C-alpha cells in the first residue's frame, strides 16, 4: 500500500494531553477520561493548550488533530497530503473511532482508539490490529514469561513421556514413540472403536497409560496430563489439523 504512514512508536501511556478544537463533548470526555489528569482536560477545553485544527474523515470515525494550525486555516499541500495519508491508513485498518494527533514536527503520530490512552504509533499496519485488541502491545517481558512457562510445561511433559513413572511395569511412552513420533495429536478428536467413542488426545494418552503401561489414568485437570499434551503437541508443531484422520 502506497499511502502507508510510517511513524515512530513508544508507548506513552496516559500522559498525553487530549485534543482540543471543535470536537464533540463526548470525544473530549472520552479522551479526557483516558488521560490521568483532569486539569489537562480543563486546560485543553479552555484553549490554553496547543493550537490545533481538526479534520474528520468521511466515515466520521477517524479524526486527525493537526498541531500548529488554526481552525479554518488552509493547510499547505505537503501537510494536507500527510493528513490525508494518515486518515486513509486509519480507515483502511479498522472501523473504530480513532483520534490521531499529528505534532508540528511530524516526528510521530499519537493515536487514541475508542477512548483509550494515547499511544505513539510506530508501524501502522503491524501494530494497529494488536493495539486495537489489547490497547497496548505485549511487552518484551511478557513475551519472555509466556515462552518460559511454555518451555517449562513442555519439558515437564518430555520428562513424563520418557520415564516409566506413569505406569507400573517399566514401560514408557518413548519406547513406542521416540520423539513423540506416531502420536498424531493433530488427528484428534477421532473415533476409536476400542474406546467406543470419539476420543481426544488425552483419552488416547490415558488408554496407553492404563494398558501398555498398566498405570492409573490421569484426569484432564491433572498438570501431568497437561504437560504430556503440551509436549506431544509441541513435537508436531506446524502440522495441519485433520481431526478424524486414521
Amino acid at each position: 500500500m502506497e499511502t502507508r504512514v510510517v511513524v515512530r512508536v513508544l508507548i506513552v501511556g496516559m500522559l498525553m494531553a487530549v485534543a482540543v478544537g471543535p470536537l464533540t463533548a463526548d470525544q473530549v470526555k472520552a479522551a479526557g477520561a483516558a488521560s490521568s489528569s483532569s486539569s489537562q482536560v480543563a486546560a485543553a477545553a479552555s484553549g490554553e493548550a496547543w493550537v490545533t485544527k481538526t479534520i474528520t474523515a468521511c466515515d466520521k470515525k477517524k479524526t486527525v488533530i493537526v498541531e500548529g494550525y488554526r481552525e479554518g486555516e488552509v493547510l499547505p499541500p505537503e501537510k494536507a497530503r500527510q493528513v490525508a495519508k494518515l486518515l486513509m491508513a486509519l480507515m483502511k485498518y479498522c472501523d473504530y473511532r480513532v483520534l490521531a494527533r499529528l505534532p508540528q514536527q511530524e516526528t510521530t503520530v499519537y493515536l487514541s482508539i475508542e477512548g483509550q490512552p494515547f499511544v505513539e504509533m510506530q508501524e501502522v499496519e503491524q501494530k494497529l490490529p494488536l493495539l486495537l485488541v489489547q490497547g497496548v502491545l505485549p511487552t518484551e517481558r511478557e513475551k519472555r514469561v509466556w515462552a518460559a512457562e511454555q518451555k517449562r510445561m513442555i519439558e515437564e511433559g518430555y520428562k513424563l513421556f520418557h520415564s516409566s513413572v506413569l505406569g507400573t511395569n517399566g514401560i514408557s511412552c518413548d519406547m513406542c514413540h521416540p520423539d513423540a513420533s506416531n502420536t498424531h495429536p493433530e488427528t484428534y478428536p477421532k473415533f476409536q472403536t476400542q474406546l467406543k467413542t470419539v476420543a481426544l488426545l488425552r483419552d488416547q494418552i490415558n488408554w496407553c497409560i492404563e494398558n501398555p503401561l498398566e498405570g492409573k489414568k490421569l484426569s484432564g485437570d491433572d498438570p501431568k496430563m497437561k504437560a504430556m499434551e503440551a509436549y506431544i503437541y509441541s513435537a508436531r508443531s506446524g502440522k495441519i489439523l485433520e481431526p478424524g484422520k486414521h
Partner: protein
Amino acid sequence: MKRQTLRPEERKQFFTSLRKMSRRQFFSTAGKVAAMAAASDLVVRFGNHIISHAPHSFQPVELAYGAEKFTFAYVSDTHLLAKGMTHRFAKAALKAVRDANAMSPQPDFVLFGGDLAQLGQSEELKLGKEILDELKPKRYMMVGEHDWYFDMGEKWRELFGDPWYAFDHKGIHFVILNSVIVEDYWTAPKMKPMERMLFMAQLDNPRGKPFTVGEEQRDWLQKNLAKVDKGTPIVIFSHSPLYKYYKPWNFWTDDAEQVQKLLAPFTSVTVIHAHTHQVLTNRIGNIHFHGVLSTAWPWPYAPEGLPKLTVQMDRADPFNQFDGCGWGTVDVLSTGRANKSYKLWDRNPMNVTAAQLESGKVAAPGPSY
C-alpha cells in the same frame, strides 16, 4: 548349455564317475563341465583357489554350488524387564520361541538378534536365557546395547560367551558382530552403571553417541575374512544396521563405510541386523541389508533416511498388544543370498526376496507416519 543344479546323489555319482573314466571320457566330461561353468557364470574353484569364470578355460574343475538351500530363524529385541513371566514382554518372547519351535521342518539354527534385556540387569538376562533355553534348534547369540551398557557386557559374556565371533555353515561364512560400541560418555561425568544404562536406553536421547563396530572388531573382521574365498557367500549379523539410516535414533553405524569396504570384495554379502524393530530393506553395492522384527514393540519409520527399497509395514494398531511385533525366518539360497520372511503376529507375513533387492525396484510410498 543350461545351468544345472545337481542334487546330492547326482553330484556324488558325477564325482565317482570322474574317478573311473577313461582319458577320452575325461576330456569330454571336463569340456562339458567347463562349458557349463562358463555358461552359468559359476565360480570355478580348484581346491581352495578360484581359477576363473572366464569362458574357454579348460581345466579339471570341482564345481562349488555354494551351500544347499537352508533356513534359519530369528528372535530378537525382547527387551525383557525383570518382572516375571507375566509381563507382556516376557509373554511375547515366549510366543516367538514357541512359534520357532513349531516350525516344520525345524530351522538349522536360531539367531538371537540382541537386546535380550531392557536395562542390562542380571535378572533380565537370566529371564531371557530361561526363555531362549526353550528353543529346540541350535542357538547363536548376538548382543545389543540394552544388554551391554549396564556392566559393559560382563554378565553377557558369562551367560552367552563371546560378543563377536564367526562360524561356517553349509558353505556360508557367518560373522556375528557387536556393532553397538560407542565413545566413552560415562567416565568423565562419573556416571553410575544404571545412569550409563539409562542414557543408552533412551532411543531419542539428544546427547546420545553413535554406534560403531570399532577398530578392534574391524581389524578382527579383516583378518577373519582374509581366510575366506571371495566367492564364499557371507552373512553378517549385527545389532545396528551397518549403514546410516537415522542418526537421532541411532539407526546408524558410524563406521559403516569402513565395514562395507571390508565386505565389498565378496560376491555375495547379506547383513541381517536388529535394533530397528521394523520391516527394513536396503542394498548398498553388492550388500543386501535386512532388518528383523522385535517381539516387544514396533518402531515407527524415521522421519527421513528410509532406504528406498523398503516396503513399509503398516502402522501398528495400539489396541493390539502384539501388532507390529513378531519373529522371522531367513532362507539362505544356494547362491548364498537370502530371502527374508517377517512373521508379523496377527498379520500376513511379509516376504522380501533377494531377487527383489537385485532388481533394485523402488518401493511404493508407504503409510504416513
